[in-house]
């Protein structure tokens, strides 16, 4: 990443199609109806990529929206995290689900270790500290 995208590069689909690649390396112009019919394009090819999210983060930051940019950057880390893992961690973050701080720290470690999701891991660790302080590990019925 060059880190040089500005609001002039937006929308990418119009202004910078050269930057756009699908997960399988296809270009935007390859995603035609004919290709879908021929079975050359699957749902997998229509997913967002970590690169696209980082590019959108740069644009958001250039547009003066740093918190939105940080969310896109965290999202870039989650692209390759499987759906069931995401739903499991979401569930764990809900009140009273984790029995103690260790459960959340373990989830953070999974994100960091297996999926290289450093920002997301720190976010879960931050939650663990807050939950401990606010007594959210107490069992709910």
């Amino acid at each position, binding site marked *: 990443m060059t880190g040089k995208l500005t609001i002039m590069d937006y*929308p990418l689909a119009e202004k910078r199609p050269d930057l756009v690649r699908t997960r399988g390396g296809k270009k935007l112009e390859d995603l035609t109806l004919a290709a879908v019919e021929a079975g050359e394009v699957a749902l997998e*090819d229509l997913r967002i990529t970590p690169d696209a*999210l980082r590019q959108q983060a740069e644009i*958001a930051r250039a547009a003066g929206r740093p*918190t939105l940019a940080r969310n896109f950057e*965290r999202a870039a880390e*989650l692209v390759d995290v499987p759906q069931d893992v995401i739903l499991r961690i979401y569930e764990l973050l809900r009140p009273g689900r984790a029995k103690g701080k260790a459960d959340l720290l373990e989830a953070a470690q999974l994100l960091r270790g297996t999926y290289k999701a450093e920002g997301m891991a720190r976010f879960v660790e931050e939650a663990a500290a807050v939950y401990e302080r606010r007594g959210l590990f107490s069992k709910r019925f």
Partner: protein
Amino acid sequence: MPDKPQGAPQIKVNRWRRFADWDERPLRLDKFAVEDAAAGFAAFSSPNDPKPGLEIESGKVKSMDGIAAADFDMIDLFIATHHLDLEVAPEAMAIPSHEIARMLVDMNVPRAKLVRLAHGMTPAKLAEVVAELNALEIAFAYSKMRARHTPGNQGHVTNAKDDPLQLAADAATAVAFGFDEIETTMRVARNAWSNAVACAVGAAIGRWGTLFQCSSEEAEELQIGMAGFTSYAETVSVYGTERAFIDGDDTPWSKAFLSTAYASRGIKMRCTSGAGSELLMGFHESKSLLYLEARCLCLQRGMGVQGTQNGGIDGAPVTCTIPGGVRELMAENLLAVWLDLECASGNDARPTESEIRVGAKILPYLIAGSDLICSGFGSILKYDNSFNPSLMNGEELEDFLVLQRDFEADGGLTPVGETEILDLRSRAVQAIAAVFEELGLSQPTADMMASVVAASGSEETRSYAPRDVSFISEAIKQRGINVIDVIRALARRGYRTEAQNLLNVVKLRVTGDYLQTSAIVRNGRIISAVNDPNEYLGPGTGYRLSGERRDRLMNIRDVLDRDEVLRNEARHAKTETRLIQYRTMGAAEPGKDPKEVLIGISPAFGLKIFRTLGGHPLSAVLDALISGIRAKGGTPRIVRLRHTADTSFLGLSAARLAGSGIGIGIQAKGTAVIHQRDRLPHHNLELFSNAPITTLEHYRRFGENAAAYAMGETPEPVVVPTKGQALGARFHAQVALIYAIETGLTEDGAAPEDVEIRLAEAVQ
């Protein structure tokens, strides 16, 4: 009570019956609550609201809004960590609130400058600033501060049977009316997948670009999004107190995680919050609605979501029971856009049974514009709305279109003609039926399809019932059918345009352009706060209707024009010429007969115009007047006046020529006057000003009275009873067009002419 005056008769009346009338008005179904801050019923401020304040020590928040960092609850913690920009905060917090309030309504202060300040402000400070503004100032500030330049709108598409045929037809209809986003939900939760497929297909009819969401249980909603059917989500609710949050089974971190998960799947997402939710959940901490919502919004910005759906939402009805509640809803929407969030500005759950309160509620948003004016507008009938009725619904959609035209304001919707709608609805049910057949899900009959195309609502359809739908829905889920399967099915069955439209929406997620703030699709292009920013700086800037857009908004149905009025008259001309003949007999001389009553007819009477606004043929009107005059022993004479078309002068001129000094003046549209020779022009004896409700019997009695005046009597004036109809609204356009025809025939100085008429027997 004051002292009882001596000798006054006692009046035994126990109620002014107007109160009984008022009891019957829909308004009285609304309940209102007293202001009670301790019980959470306070809109803008409560004694329990903290005072704004911020202490920063070595780059860390030491206290916020009077609460020491050590005592922060998890909402304070999240805001202090993720929302507050500590570089801006000292500057922003130091500016007096009334000064910032003035900047919000100062057209010379750019939006960007205010957005920067908001990022350094605490919830209590933000709330204190907007509380300084009155309702008009809030609306103006909202217009200036909203993120995207072009306004938009969102609609609900649901029905009481979860019928996929109707969902497809109604989605296509909503798309045609211009909704930028449509949202569905279910009566029966397990029908979510069927709803999703039906609306996704329906939204691909006609044009592409309407974003679609299926509101369901959090995990399932994300799965439906992953399968590619939906393109946005807005059910991620946040709350302004810690207890409400926990009771809602979430925390700021769990909701932020979910928001990030949506972005990682390339799905547009906004949060939901709004006044009244904490109150309804019973955890309001005796704080004002506005302060709690300020917390919610700072939280959302901190989470890094692009936008919010706020302005009461499910809490709007309770908020509207509180003094200042509606103004508070406007104020919290302003907070959202000031914080630079996309705002789907409520105007959602119907907060009143009063149509006046409905109209008043929507107006500021319509004229200010909003990213999504409603969130959403019930595009279907009230009883079909599975979210609950909206502020505006299918019943009232045309009212909204007319409001756009009245105020030349873009509410995001566009009038559509009957034929076009019928074509789109037919195409939609055929397309979803083809998809169902192609995927082996179901085979709807032609009768089911026809009943849906014609139906205004689900009570009129002979189609799927919720149980039938659940089998379809379960099959879609179990077999893992995704949007690519649906696109292929459409293409295989010849719906290539729709297949391409649906593919285009799914392709949006590849680049994620539509994840930026306030993104929608217009004419196949993404517009958002990034490439279509609101840069209002006073008159001549900001969003204005283009000529082309204005033409479309003005084009509502059934609009009168001059040609149409003339065509109508020409139709009546044919019948009238069979019933009455007018013969001009030359210049009219003053009459000598003391019993003579003159009828002065207007220039176009019976020549260009043939019916009154009440729909009576002029032959019958003349016959009624003549019979009335004769019945009282008067002698009628008809004169055509060509120098004027004004009722008063028609009457006065006729009176001056009449042997009795009494004349009737009548315009072709039916307005009539009885006049007397020596009176001032506008001081007549009797007047029929409401032609549309004037009957032939009234005209006959009018003739009788004119003759009675001629005999020197003082008859009881004929009063045409009105029920208070807005006759001006119903008739004035037509009146103005018809009257122009009359005045067009007047000629200065043209002499009155005697006219002989011959009436066919059919008239008498």
